[in-house]
């Protein structure tokens, strides 16, 4: 009986000692910092994941714009009259002026 009481007292003493262990006064700050860190990590995860997707999308857009720009060019098949003249064989303008003087 005496031994049983001794054991019970020792258990009680151990529990009391462990219960009286001083808790870090900044525990709530630690918890909030851990939560903030986790939220930051979550927020940061999306851009990291999106980076290759965004790169691929940009490349696709550039190629697509290139194709559109290439297709928009037309070879200019409208018919245009071209006069090929040789200045050397053209009549000299002074000839007409001379004629006017004679009149």
């Amino acid at each position, binding site marked *: 009986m005496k031994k049983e009481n001794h054991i019970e007292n*020792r258990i009680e003493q151990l*529990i009391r000692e*462990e219960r009286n*262990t001083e808790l870090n006064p900044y525990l709530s700050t630690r*918890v909030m910092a851990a*939560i903030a860190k*986790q939220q930051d990590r979550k927020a940061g995860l999306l851009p990291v994941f999106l980076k290759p997707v965004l790169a691929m999308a940009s490349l696709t857009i550039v190629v697509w714009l290139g194709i559109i720009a290439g297709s928009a060019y037309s070879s200019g098949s409208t018919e245009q009259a071209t006069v090929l003249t040789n200045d050397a064989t053209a009549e000299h303008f002074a000839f007409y002026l001379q004629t006017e003087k004679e009149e």
Partner: protein
Amino acid sequence: MEEAESIKSILAGHTAEFTHLVKAYETSVFHIVMGFVHQKEDAEDITQEVFVKAFQSLDRFAGRSSFSTWLYRIAIHTSLNELKRRKRRTLWSMAADMLQLPSTNKNPEQALTEKTEQDEIRKAIDRLPEKQRMAFILSRYEELPQRDVALIMEISEGAVEQLLLRARDNLKKTLQHP
């Protein structure tokens, strides 16, 4: 602000409101965790983890039980999981334990005897079957009434009483015949 309102506010994005809940329950959670791990640094780390988990799953708290009941369940499961994970204690914590002699005016021999005895009690608590250990820790470390222990463990009050009686008998048997 009431707990339910605080929770609504946190879920609405006012994260800072969670500090009040942490401050209100940190000591209780710490006591429970301490009952499982018996070591201040480990208990603080696990207490932190308990609150982070609670924050993450706050949207799943349906309010069917009180916030404390829900939180204590998280504390128990987190402690048990951590114990399974840390089955092999690190050299550091073993060394810290060996150096952690009670700071009393007793002579070193008496202090060492006390330390050995305390280690035996800790081991005996740790060796209790899981349910008995849960009931014992909630009842003795956090001094919760049997009704609350029953709610947390989702069993009847009678079952809690039985578990506590068996836990006490097991501890006595183990410590009388180590």
